[in-house]
């Protein structure tokens, strides 16, 4: 390999390594978010004792989603389950997205940039993007279920479309990488 190309590859490996650490922090944030949201849904059940100087939790656990406000303390058990499932699914999909991106960056940090494996990993990132778009649509149901108020946030299916485009591009990249790998085996 030419020296300038080796320098570029070294740079790719270094930057990918740094981005991988950021990704891992994001994965940790997703796990923390799941724990916090579960805790919030559970502890906002019982009424807090009223005492002077005590922190009144029910006043602080307000949730504001797209201009619709509701207190976690006031919602019914059925709604709590629904919100909990949506939380779990959303954070699960976010974790999946971060995990696939982490694996892709792992490939890049090892110098496997234009390979069939990396192209397959990009396809999985595209699928994750589609799932995030679907979950984004699902979250519009939260104010509808809890306060019977529906507000169209105006954001369309952009994430789903972007995800599908990434999947399509990854298919092309995978085929091109296969052609390249076969070409490398011609001596």
């Amino acid at each position, binding site marked *: 390999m030419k020296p300038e190309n080796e320098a570029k590859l070294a740079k790719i490996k270094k930057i990918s390594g740094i981005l991988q650490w950021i990704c891992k922090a994001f994965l940790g944030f997703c796990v923390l978010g799941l724990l916090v949201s579960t805790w919030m849904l559970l502890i906002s059940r019982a009424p807090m004792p009223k005492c002077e100087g005590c922190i009144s939790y029910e006043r602080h656990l307000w949730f504001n989603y797209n201009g619709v406000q509701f207190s976690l303390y006031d919602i019914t058990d059925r709604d709590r389950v629904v919100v909990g499932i949506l939380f779990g699914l959303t954070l699960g999909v976010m974790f999946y997205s971060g995990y696939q991106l982490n694996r892709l960056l792992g490939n890049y940090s090892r110098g496997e940039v234009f*390979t*069939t494996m990396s192209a397959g990993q990009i396809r999985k990132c595209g699928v994750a993007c589609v799932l995030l778009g679907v979950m984004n649509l699902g979250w519009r149901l939260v104010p509808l279920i809890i306060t019977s108020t529906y507000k169209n946030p105006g954001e369309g299916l952009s994430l789903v479309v972007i995800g599908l485009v990434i999947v399509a591009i990854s298919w092309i990249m995978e085929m091109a990488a296969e052609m390249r790998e076969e070409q*490398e085996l*011609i*001596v």
Partner: protein
Amino acid sequence: MPIVVNVDVMLARRKMRLNTLAELVGITAQNLSVLKTGKAKAIRFSTLERLCEVLECEPGDLLAYEKGADIVTVENG
């Protein structure tokens, strides 16, 4: 693949190292290793010509056809 490449046999006969042969032929040692291990999908006539010139042999000394010799290479994925 039924086509077998006998580069290692010729290297032993000529008492030559792989790196030396690669340098004389004008290809990388990695490419020559691909050829030697049977992973190559194709070989250029120019490469075959240079190999025969350096190893002082015929193409038939380097290439052989063995029906049933199916070398399965495991690819990524």
